[in-house]
């Protein structure tokens, strides 16, 4: 696996501010990411998936999360982007929803408010655990710290909430 750390360029991400000293560790980061990919591929957890965007860069992934049956997100597929900082796993990956998602803890730009991605982050988490957490967050929002207050207020009215979810939802484009 050859990943050139200098090719890491994400205009609006934090990577530009990261100290240069963390760069030499890129080898072990790619190794860890490789392992996480392998683990995720073999985990066979239903409804979650992710893969590097290109073969040249292991630090940017695309993921897919399916809503769990029995929740308002049942049968809906959400695309997310995952960016791993070069000092991963000591710093949480940056994750955002690419498919518009109407959810109390997701804002209009797709930013997510989830404790394990912020102050509760720990190096023992992996892509698989994050994806599983996100999947369960869909069905069980934390209405105490909403990013989308309107959605949080509406949560108790599930029928109307579902209507809003579907109105915001855009099916993942397929090219056929």
């Amino acid at each position: 696996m050859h990943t050139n750390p200098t090719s890491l360029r994400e205009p609006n991400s934090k990577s530009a501010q990261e100290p240069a000293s963390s760069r030499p560790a890129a080898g072990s980061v790619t190794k860890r990411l490789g392992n996480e990919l392998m683990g995720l591929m073999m985990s066979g957890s239903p409804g979650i998936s992710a893969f590097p965007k290109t073969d040249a860069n292991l630090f940017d992934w695309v993921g897919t999360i399916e809503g769990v049956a029995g929740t308002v997100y049942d049968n809906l597929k959400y695309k997310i982007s995952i960016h791993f900082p070069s000092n991963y796993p000591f710093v949480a990956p940056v994750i955002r929803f690419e498919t518009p998602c109407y959810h109390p803890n997701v804002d209009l730009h797709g930013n997510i408010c989830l404790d394990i991605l912020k102050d509760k982050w720990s190096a023992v988490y992996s892509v698989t655990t994050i994806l599983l957490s996100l999947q369960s967050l869909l069905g069980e929002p934390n209405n105490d710290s909403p990013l989308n207050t309107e959605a949080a207020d509406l949560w108790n009215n599930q029928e109307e909430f579902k209507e809003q979810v579907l109105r915001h939802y855009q099916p993942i484009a397929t090219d056929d």
Partner: protein
Amino acid sequence: MQPRPLNEPTVSPDAPGVQEAMSYLHDRDMFPELLRFRNAGLLKCFAWVEEEVAMHMEQWEAKMAVQSISRLIQRVYEWYIAWEHAPAFMKHARGEYIALFRARWLACLPPSFTLGLRLFLRTTLPTLPANERLFHILEQLGISERFDKTFIDVMFDEVEQKILDTCPGMWREPRLDSIRKSAKDLEERWLTMVYGHMFVRTQNSENAMMMVTGRLDHFISRNLVELRTSEIFDIIVDFPDTLPAVQDLRLCMARSLYRPDFIEGLREVVNQRILQPAADTDDIITFYVSLIRCLRIIDPQGVILHKVAPPIRKYLRDRPDAVRCIVKRMTDENESFMQEGEQVVPIQQVHEPFDDYTDPHWLPEPLDAGADFRTTRPMDIVSTLVSIYDTQDLFIKELQHLLAGRLLAVRNSPLDEEIRNVEMLKMRFGEAPLQVCAVMLKDMTDSRRTNTHLHGEEPHPLYTTVISRLFWPTIQPVPLKMPGQFKTLQDSFEADFHKFKPDKNLKWVPQLGAVSLKLDLEDRTVEVEATPIQAGVIELFSEQNADTWNVELLMQKLGGIDRVLVQSALDFWIGEGVVKDEGHTYKLLERAEAMTGAPRPLMVEEAPPVDEKEKHQAEQMKIYWQFIQGMLTNLSSLPIDRIQAMLKFAPGYDRSVQELAVFLESARREGLVIFNNGAWKLAKK
């Protein structure tokens, strides 16, 4: 005053006249003179004793009979007593006499006397308490003092004899304790007898005894370890029946003194008896397992095992069928690899160094632990066996192969056992590697569901197992075309299946499975279990006006399958007495005929359903398939060169684009992927 030969009467010192003569000499202070005269005479006459000693020793050396020694001692004692007689006033000169006599007679003993004495003393052991007089004599003659080492040796001889008498081949009961007890007992009696005369029990004698006791205990341990080392092969093979012997060994080996020899012996046995081409792989594994269990008792820290096991492990690694044997045992109901209290340890942890800092029974590494010795996690047997190999892939592959065989053989009976097995193995290997097996099991349950869905709850003549080809070992279909009613059944199932799962391609593996047949013949009914090919052959015979066939025609009608297969199917029916061989043609026997000649031996040689080389490839492709699935899920559709480039994330991927194309094409035929506008994407579920 002069010593005389024994047969001459001696003059009593108290005889009349002697007293007076003595007091005369005494008055004139001539005793020293007299003593010198007597000693000179003694030395002159000592030749007689020497002669006697030489005679008895000659007898001893000629016949090796301990009686010679016994007689010799008796005779010398007679001389000793006879010459000791001296006038009362010379009593103070007695010490000088004893010293002189002892020195002279001991000097004329040849070296062979030591052995003689040793053997002679052995014979006195059984009647020890009755020999008080003998030991008195031995002491008087200075033998006890001069040959003290021999006296101890006698005891060692006896203990050794005891071990040789009672221990060889006796592995089913503990011996060490009884040996120690009897040695202790013997020592007590013997030393009291021997030393009891030389000195009263003082602090000194106690110390001497302590020292001997320690040496004796060493001696027992060494002898027993030596003996058991020479028997170690049988002890290990018969374990756990030989547990008492192993326990004894553990106690003896508490002194690390004997460990090098034991290890050496063990290595030799392993080399001679186990690491031989003639040894069955199964037996080697059995031995290894027993060895582990034995050594766990003898040396819980595992140093000995660490020194002995590597050659066995290396040898097993080179045996091609070792994996199969191990896997078979792992999943065998009757085989118990697990002992009580053993913990299943996930394999990944096996190679990690292990130190349990909370263990209150922690011990430092033994002295003989090599530099490369590491305290390893306490492992169960399966983990130990699996850790022979650097990777578990082999095991997973073999497991999958085994499971495939078993699942395909299962007839509609519950799969509980297989499911339990797979769950157990998940605990060891982790969830991911056994994904494939889980899929195989799921195929089985899905098949049941499909069957129930298509046929309803009633029993149906056709029961199908639908397997996901990518997750199973490669099964090479035989181009068998089932004739007659079988074809009708297959076709109707196929049609139903397509309606039920329109996106799936159904491909028959017609040679697998079993058919329960009931043949209604004119005079009898035959009920048999047959293979599909056998069933196909007899089906052709049952067609109208077709009770005679030749092999070529049968081959052709069955879709051009191999001659061997048709021939063996015909042989099966001949064996059942349903078909008769008429030279080049075969005829159906509507009426039973007496068997002509001996029934042909059934050539039931089942070709392995799985192609070894392809099996390996299919196995690897399963991992890659997960990756392809992952990338297509997230990146929607991709051209093949992008897929190829992305697959570098999959460890060990080394296929060419062409191979990938073949793989994708086969996945497409199975309805897993779609090819559209030069790009591949997942088929919608």
